[in-house]
């Protein structure tokens, strides 16, 4: 009897230890946050990224595979500010997973740690696809990534206390490198200050603010509304009078509109990676900004 009890205890202990050693299962809504978790948690977490750079994070299907991943997740990291309003709530309610519901430590919303811009004064869908919580594309400014990283380190340490020291150590190393990289990028991009740009969608608000780019138009007549011929014609006419220097789009934007405008106006169209995987060189967060700056510089040369 006693032996059996000991055996059972041993099994239980073994299971607990196994669980403690198993890597934390993380679901990241967007590739940039998946990459950030990887920087900080390394092999202490297995990261599943729900979307790719070729998908519009506003419009994702709440696919069965995503429900399965969220159901098994220990930690969920998303942008927030209603970027995922069309699909994340469904994944959360269907998952049957208490640990990653909003308000629990396993639910990390990056937007909470960043000062958002373009918070609308008036909420009216006639204005297009606007976000009540402000523009959610804030990771295009690396200084915002810093803010999120700082909060993420603490949160990971809170959720996975056994590895808290590890996360803080990795976090410090990352932030030191990141800070140095930001200085480097700012120096490289000094010549971009003040140049007029046309954007496809309002994804670059924070990048523009960081580098001092000057937005003079967008291909979408209103946020989230696909470019129309009439709007493009109007934009083209404006470009002929006051040309912008570059037309920016991301990997998931339909290239037709920016190519059209570029051909007619002679203004170079530039594809920026927007997130990890958007271009071949954007393999991690550092590569993302290295390539973004390199592509902008090449276009205005």
């Amino acid at each position, binding site marked *: 009897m006693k032996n059996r009890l000991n055996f059972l205890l041993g099994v239980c202990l073994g299971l607990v230890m196994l669980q403690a050693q198993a890597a934390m299962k993380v679901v990241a809504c967007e590739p940039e946050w998946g990459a950030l978790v990887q920087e900080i948690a390394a092999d202490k977490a297995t990261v599943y990224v729900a*979307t*790719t750079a*070729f*998908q*519009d994070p506003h*419009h994702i*299907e*709440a*696919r*069965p*595979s995503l*429900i*399965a*991943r969220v*159901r*098994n997740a220990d930690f969920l990291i998303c942008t927030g500010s209603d970027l995922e309003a*069309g*699909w*994340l*709530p*469904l994944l*959360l*309610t*269907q*998952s*049957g*997973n*208490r*640990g990653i*519901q909003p*308000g629990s430590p396993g639910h990390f919303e990056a937007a*909470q*740690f*960043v*000062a*958002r811009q373009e*918070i609308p004064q008036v909420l009216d*869908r006639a204005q297009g*696809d606007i976000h*009540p919580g*402000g523009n959610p594309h804030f990771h295009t400014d690396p*200084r915002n990534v*810093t*803010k999120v*990283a*700082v*909060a993420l*380190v*603490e949160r990971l340490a809170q959720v996975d206390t056994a590895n808290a020291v590890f996360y*803080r150590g990795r976090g*410090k190393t990352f*932030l*030191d490198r*990141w*800070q140095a990289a*930001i200085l480097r990028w700012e120096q490289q991009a000094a010549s971009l200050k003040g140049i007029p740009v046309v954007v496809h969608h309002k994804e670059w608000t924070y990048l523009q603010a960081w580098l001092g780019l000057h937005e003079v138009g967008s291909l979408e007549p209103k946020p*989230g509304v*696909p470019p129309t011929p009439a709007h493009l014609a109007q934009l083209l006419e404006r470009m002929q009078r006051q040309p912008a220097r570059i037309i920016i789009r991301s990997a*998931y934007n*339909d290239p037709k509109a920016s190519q059209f405008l570029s051909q007619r106006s002679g203004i170079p169209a530039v594809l920026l990676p927007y997130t990890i995987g958007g271009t071949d060189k954007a393999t991690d967060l550092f590569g993302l900004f290295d390539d973004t700056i390199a592509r902008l510089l090449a276009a205005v040369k």
Partner: protein
Amino acid sequence: MFRSILFGITFAATLCFSSLASAVTNDELKELREQVRQLKEQYEKRIGALEQRLQEAERAASQAGTVAAKASAAADQAAIKAVQATAQASGRASGENAFNPAVSLILNGTYGSLSRDPSGFRINGFVPTGGEVGPPNRGFSLGESELMLSANIDPNFRGTLIAALSPDDSVAVEEGYIQTLGLSNGLTIKAGRFFSAVGYQNEIHAHAWDFVDAPLVNKVFLGNQFADDGVQLKWIAPTDTYLALGLEAGRGRKFPGGPDGGRSKNGFGSGTLFAHVGGDIGSSTAWKLGLSHLRTSPQNRTYEDSDSTGTTVTNSINGASRLWVVGGVLKWAPNGNSSVTNFKLQGEYFRRSERGDQIYDTTAASLGTQTGSYRTHQSGWYAQGVYQFMPQWRLGYRHDRLNSGATTLGLVDSGALTPADFPILAHHQPTRNTLMLDWSGSEFSRVRLQFARDRSRFDATDNQVFLQYIMSLGAHGAHAF
């Protein structure tokens, strides 16, 4: 915003004081004025200080990287504070109405042009044959407007109510349920009135349908859409491939259960079992397959028919009904980016067997009330594809086919009555082909043109043309896959 709220408060306070003013002396009034002025000054100072702190906090947060290296926790606090201050300044809804549920409203309307009168619509070989399952009206008509309210109740539950406002000025509760949020281990419980998980199409709200009307199988086997009062238990397996198992127990308040409103009986009147599997193929394709089974015991399922003497009689069916549904959906978009082009393929096969008693002429209007046995094996399927060929534009095609199968009627076998007394139940294989084109101004608006060639009736082909709009206002919930 913050400032204006404070001014509002001060103003309200002043108003309050002034209403008292008639009862107070001039000196007191002066004193009060002075107090209000001081109050205002104090608040302005505090707002100024708050704004300064916000700026400082933001600056601190932006430099947090370097700070963080030394004291990441402190910087985290700073960032959080900065955000809290921003949130205060951003003027989000506050007070009681901040907790109001998400409200959304669906408006839809159709213009119909049909070669056959929809009031005489029937799907021969099947019961029910008219009423709710018929096509929309000829000419202009308002569809059902859906009013949706939903919110998290507390950390444990979420509640949803969907009311359907019918164009005939009646209101119906389409769905009204609570659902658990945090049971863990992949478990979810739903209770109330909800669309049953029998089949794929049945759970989809009409405003998210790809065609104006439901597939024929949903019409004849589920009375358009089956929503019962009951409980649903669903479990998602802890695997990377999606596997969900579930069961439902309900009142059986509606076709294919019945009688209407359900029986006065303890226990349950309908039961459903379902299993879903799903996954991805590469990054472009996602799929889901389902198998489900619905059991009901219809009582007093009445329908009208015209017997061999030409009299309209009311017949009724009591017994047991077993329905199996197998089907699936596949969605494709290049790299999983559905904004430019995408394709959706969907199909389901239904098979139902029913046995019990059939009562002929319940009101004794013709040859007198008689009872005999009733047995059917019926089946049907549909397949549909919808292709978005350019942003905002979609083209879709659907094929429907039903087989009324073998119907054994005791009253006919015994020679008491003839098949001519049950013309609606005569063998028939209804088919329908539907083509639609729709345009979506945004995810909140859609305008659709649809052509259908409907051979649901024995003797006639109905050519139908519909023009439809579906618009959604307010908060709009995500759509399930």
